[in-house]
């Protein structure tokens, strides 16, 4: 039932092709994952520092198979934030790229593979962990928030199976990775294709690099996914002019693709005979909640579609009452086996059970058309998606406050705007934000304002800041 327990059956089939074009079979992958996990007791917490390379995947699969609980952390997380996270969750082990392990004394090396090292930390293996807890994902790598999402074995397996089903993934599909495996969307591409015994072309290269396209062509990739920014890059690269006869399906999630780009890619893909599937999800729902069947992607461009198999969606008004009328805005609520157990803020939360009980208030406002297709119209919580990454605006404001400065964060996806009344501090704020979050400077602008607009009751009028 757990796909990661069953991949042994794929034996000599190629599981991974890496950037050097080396092929690794399912047996190879399993042998590597055994080598790591045999050194770690079951139910132990491990920080799995992820890069899109073989050993990172092997570690991840091994932890699941060994019922060890990984916290998936992107290798790009700044060292200070990594440190904070370590102290908050007290993992007994860290699985990380060797070069990164040299920068600080995170622990004692007890096993080395070609590029990764397993470290034993100062923490004992005494953190109680709930029996259903499979793994933990970060909600926002960018502010290094210690808030993690607790995913169960049931969550991962049901979501992986549902995605395989609506995308009709078969063993002949060959995805090339475009997203980090520490990110739910990137991880779902791995999970779904490994479940089916596919060959995954594993790369850390971006679509802006020649090596990515060489890999795609040389290894006959049939599919890849992208966040809105990926599609902006594909447009600049004039994807429409590319000759890629093996591509069968492209997916899009991680934020709302603009109406223009949605229509553009829907028609480019239609012309090329490629399926284009727009999807919607959250880490809190493991990965995916809905998808737009590709035959509707022009007629219903902008829609997030319908619930995935096994899921249900509805809208609730401000009083929590279900909205039965069409074309009426309410909060989108999702119910399904992929709704995660809840959050964790520190190691003590790891023993908690399922708080959500299968129902998730998404925090997004949406409406539904007469055919039952949903459209997102806004967000309840104050966060932005910058190049697919979630940036919590309140957390960022809090972080900037530690500099002794006051700001209000706003803007829109891919365009963070930080408003301040502190004249002369704009560069300092920008540098701080860039170094703390790893966001690209071009994605954030610091704007000097005379004053922060407030209502009579003192509430900040975020909408007035444009």
């Amino acid at each position, binding site marked *: 039932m757990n796909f990661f327990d069953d991949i042994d059956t794929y034996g000599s089939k190629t599981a991974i092709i890496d950037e050097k074009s080396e092929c690794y079979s399912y047996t190879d992958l399993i042998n590597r994952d055994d080598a790591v996990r045999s050194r770690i007791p079951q139910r132990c917490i491990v920080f799995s520092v992820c890069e899109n390379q073989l050993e990172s995947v092997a570690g991840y699969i091994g932890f699941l198979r060994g019922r060890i609980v990984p916290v998936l952390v992107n290798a790009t997380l700044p060292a200070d934030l990594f440190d904070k996270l370590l102290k908050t969750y007290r993992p007994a082990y860290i699985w990380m790229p060797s070069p990164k392990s040299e920068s600080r004394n995170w622990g004692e090396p007890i096993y080395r593979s070609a590029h990764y090292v397993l470290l034993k930390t100062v923490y004992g293996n005494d953190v109680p962990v709930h029996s259903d807890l499979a793994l933990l994902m970060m909600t926002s790598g960018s502010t290094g928030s210690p808030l993690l999402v607790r995913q169960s074995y049931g969550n991962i397996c049901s979501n992986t199976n549902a995605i395989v089903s609506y995308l009709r993934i078969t063993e002949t599909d060959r995805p090339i990775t475009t997203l980090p495996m520490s990110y739910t969307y990137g991880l779902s591409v791995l999970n779904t294709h490994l479940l089916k015994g596919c060959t995954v072309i594993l790369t850390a290269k971006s679509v*802006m*690099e*020649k090596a990515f396209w060489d890999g795609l062509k040389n290894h006959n990739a049939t599919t890849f996914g992208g966040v809105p920014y990926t599609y902006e890059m594909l447009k*600049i*690269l004039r994807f429409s002019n*590319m000759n890629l006869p093996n591509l069968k399906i492209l997916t899009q999630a991680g934020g709302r693709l603009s109406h223009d780009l949605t229509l553009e890619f829907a028609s480019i893909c239609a012309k090329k005979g490629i399926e284009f599937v727009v999807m919607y999800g959250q880490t809190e729902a493991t990965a995916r909640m809905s998808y737009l069947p590709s035959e509707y992607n022009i007629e219903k461009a902008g829609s997030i579609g319908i619930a995935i198999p096994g899921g249900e969606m509805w809208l609730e008004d401000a009083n929590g009452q279900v909205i039965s009328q069409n074309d009426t805005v309410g909060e989108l609520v999702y119910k399904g086996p992929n709704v995660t157990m809840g959050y964790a803020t520190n190691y003590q939360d790891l023993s908690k059970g399922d708080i959500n009980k299968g129902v998730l208030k998404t925090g997004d406002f949406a409406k539904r058309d007469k055919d039952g297709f949903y459209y997102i119209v806004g967000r309840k919580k104050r966060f932005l998606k910058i*190049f697919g990454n979630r940036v919590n605006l309140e957390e960022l404001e809090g972080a900037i406050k530690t500099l002794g400065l006051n700001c209000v964060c706003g803007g829109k996806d891919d365009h963070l705007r930080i408003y301040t009344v502190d004249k002369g501090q704009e560069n300092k704020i920008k540098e701080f934000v860039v170094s703390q979050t790893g966001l*690209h*400077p*071009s994605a954030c602008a610091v704007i000097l304002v005379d004053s922060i607009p407030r209502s009579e009751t003192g509430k900040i009028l975020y909408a007035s800041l444009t």
Partner: protein
Amino acid sequence: MTNREKYDQVFVTCFSVEKSVLNDGFVYQSVPQWDSVGHMGMIAALEEAFGIMMETDDIIDFSSYSKGIDILAKYSVSL
């Protein structure tokens, strides 16, 4: 401004670097700002500065400051 000055200015602005680092060693990912996002911004800025529209192959081949000079020559921009 000469073409070379315009070219250098794009790099300085897009990647927040000093002119002194702009040499053969200045390549993709040699500074954090020159990631895929920065690359896209740089290409857009060069296209605007020189009034050209670059081909896909040239955009993805553009892996260094020096390579860029060769590539722009194809668009009749001599640096």
